[in-house]
């Protein structure tokens, strides 16, 4: 597929997403209150976009991912947040080390 074809096919869709992204950031800025780890990760991931190298999608995904390698002591929730929470992960790891946990049963 030639570059002109890519632009013909996807420019309007990408334009709409770009404006949605800008509007989301404006909405967050306008709202009173504080941000959490997700917005910090989001703003960090945005830094990958202007870097003029291939694999932007991969680098954005990597920047939002848990970079650790050891299994968690236990699953305390079923859901994912969309960004890695380093503070929460450190707390879980400390708790697991303190308990010296073997795999535990959470029900019954």
């Amino acid at each position: 597929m030639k570059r002109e074809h890519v632009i013909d096919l996807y420019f309007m869709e990408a334009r709409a997403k770009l404006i949605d992204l800008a509007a989301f950031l404006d909405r967050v800025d306008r709202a009173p209150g504080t941000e959490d780890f997700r917005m910090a990760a989001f703003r960090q991931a945005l830094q990958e976009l202007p870097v003029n190298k291939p694999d932007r999608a991969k680098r954005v995904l990597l920047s939002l991912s848990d970079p650790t390698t050891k299994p968690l002591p236990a699953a305390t929730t079923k859901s994912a947040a969309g960004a890695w929470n380093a503070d929460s992960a450190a707390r879980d790891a400390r708790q697991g080390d303190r308990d010296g946990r073997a795999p535990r049963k959470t029900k019954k």
Partner: protein
Amino acid sequence: MRYIEPHAHMVSRTTDDYLAMATAGCQAICEPAFWAGFDRSSADGFYDYFRQLTDFEPKRAAKFGLAHYCWLCLNPKEAEDVKLAGEVLALIPKFLDRPSVLGIGEIGLNKNSRNELAVFEKHVDLAARHGQLILIHTPHLEDKLKGTRLMIDALKSDGRLAPGRVIIDHVEEHTIQLVLDAGFWAGMTLYPESKCTAARAADMVEIYGNERLWMNSACDWGVSAPLAVPRAALEMRLRGHTAEAVDTLIYRNPARFLSQSKHFKET
């Protein structure tokens, strides 16, 4: 156009969805066992679910001219309860000879916990002992990369399963190369809000080739699209992929992988 839907949770879908999929060219649907949206209270709940997957759902699909296959397991979202997992694992061999059972799946990790990994390894052991194919769920969002690495390490460490008999599903741009480089098959799941869009799936086909790759909708009780595979096929055609290349990705590839099960019959 013909296609195989290699991952769809039809117990959560309507007969209208079956009709739409058959109309769009679907030839067969493969349904992995998954989380019901709530934790089952006992192994009996799984027994009934496995009966639904192996008895009732094939009959429902057949009314629309569709073959229906399934995969069996306890999903990772219920794997923190290792006692329940043991009871469910003990049930599975009773169902493996049923004519529509393809293998063990969708096993995997959710939050990458020790218990989840232990239950994953037990499923791998079950598959190895019974000569079954495996379909693997990789975790969501920020947990996907770590979970994919943990499971690839566990499979390599076990060593009994040929990588060509394992499909690792829900790959994205940051995990697909890990999976393919290790010799496994990779599945791309087309979701409206997470996982992978049709455009990104086509990107990955163009970058990584289509040798051991398939696409699925993983439609279930959440936000999902039963016609995501034919929609992605259209996306590929608009980008200049040939009809033959599309057929390879959405029909021949899943047929090639699934034909490793004695129960899969190509239509």
